[in-house]
C-alpha cells in the first residue's frame, strides 16, 4: 500500500442526515496504521466507544451532537488525543498522526 487514503471510510449506505458521524484515518509518517485502536471519549473524558482501525487505517463513530475527544492507541506509540465537534447531518473528518 502506497501512502494513506484521504479521510474516513466511504459513506455509501450511511444515513448521514440523521447521524453525527466522526471518522478519519490514522497515519504514521504518512502511512496508514491498520492495527491502531481509536476510542471516543465524551465531554467529561468518559469512554464511550472504541474501534480498531481498518487495514487502510480508517475508523468511524456515530456520536451525538457535541464535544468529543478521540484517543488513539497504536503499537510502539504514545496515545494521541484529538478534540472533535460533532453535529447531526455533518461528517467530522479527523486526521490522526501517531
Amino acid at each position, binding site marked *: 500500500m502506497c501512502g494513506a487514503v484521504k479521510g474516513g471510510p466511504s459513506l455509501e449506505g450511511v444515513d448521514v442526515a440523521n447521524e453525527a458521524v466522526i471518522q478519519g484515518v490514522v497515519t504514521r509518517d504518512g502511512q496508514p496504521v491498520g492495527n491502531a*485502536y481509536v*476510542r471516543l471519549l465524551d465531554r467529561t473524558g468518559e*469512554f464511550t466507544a*472504541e474501534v*480498531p482501525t481498518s487495514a487502510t487505517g480508517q475508523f*468511524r463513530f456515530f456520536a451525538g451532537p457535541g464535544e468529543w475527544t478521540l484517543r488513539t*492507541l497504536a503499537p510502539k506509540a504514545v496515545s494521541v488525543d484529538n478534540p472533535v465537534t460533532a453535529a447531526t447531518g455533518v461528517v467530522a473528518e479527523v486526521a490522526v498522526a501517531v
Partner: protein
Amino acid sequence: MSRETALVTADWVEENLNDPKVVLVEVDEDAEAYDKGHIPGAIKLDWKKDLQDGVRHDFVTKEKLEALLSAKGVGNDDTVVFYGGNNNWFAAYAYWYLKYYGHDNLRLLDGGRKKWELDSRELTTDVVDRAATTYTAKDADTSIRAFRDEVIESIGVKNLIDVRSPDEYAGRLLAPAHLPQEQAQIGGHIPTAGNVPWSKAANDDGTFRSDEELKALYADAGLDDAKDTIAYCRIGERSSHTWFVLKEILGHDNVKNYDGSWTEYGALRAVPVALGDEPGAA
C-alpha cells in the same frame, strides 16, 4: 472465584500455546477479526452465528452447544481461555455463556486481543484443526442470568447496574457510538439503576484494573453488598464484562447478567423508564 482463577496473562498464554488441554478461543464483535490474524492455535466462536438460536431470541440449546463444542474440539476437561476485541466484551460474554452451560475451567486473557496486538505479539492466519470431542454440557445455570420479569421486580429492591456509557444511560445515545443510532427502542435506563460504565473497570490497554480499584469503583457507586445484583447494557455483552468483574474477580455471590438488556427493556410497553443522569425513583 478470584483474579487468579479467572484471568491469565499474555505471557501465560505464550507459555502454554502448545498445551493440548488449553483451548484458546477468540470471540469478537467483528467476526472477521479472527480471519485476519489470531493467536496461534486459537479457534473461533461467532457470538451470533454459533451462540444465538437464530429463530428465537435466545441462546442455542444445550444439545446444539454440545454439537458445536464437540465439532470445534473442545473437551469437558479442557481449560478454555477466551480473548477478543472490544476489551474482551464478547469474550466475557462467551465466558458467561459457557459458565451458564456448566463448563468448569474457564479463563479470560487479561487485555484480550488489543493488549496482544499493542504488545506486537504473534498473530497468524494458519488454519486450526482440533480433533473432534464428545462434549457434554450441563443444564443451564439460571442463577447467573436474569430475565425481564425479575428485572422489573428488582427496581428499588436489588442492585441494578447499567454499564453503558453515560450518554446511553441518560438517553442521549441509543447505542455505543461505533454503531448507527437508529434503534427500535426508546432512550433512558431502568429506574434506580446506577451507572458504572464497564470501561471504568478496564485500563486503556484493556486489562482489568486492580482488585482494590475495582472494589472502590463499585463501593463509590453505592453497590450494596447485602443485596443481589443485576447488570445490564444494550445487548448483554458489556454487562458480561461487569458480571465477570463482580462475580469472577471480586467473588460476589449473587450477580446476574440481564442479556435482554436495553434492546429488550427499552422496547417493553408500560414499564418504568428514567431519563437523564440520575438513577430515578422506584
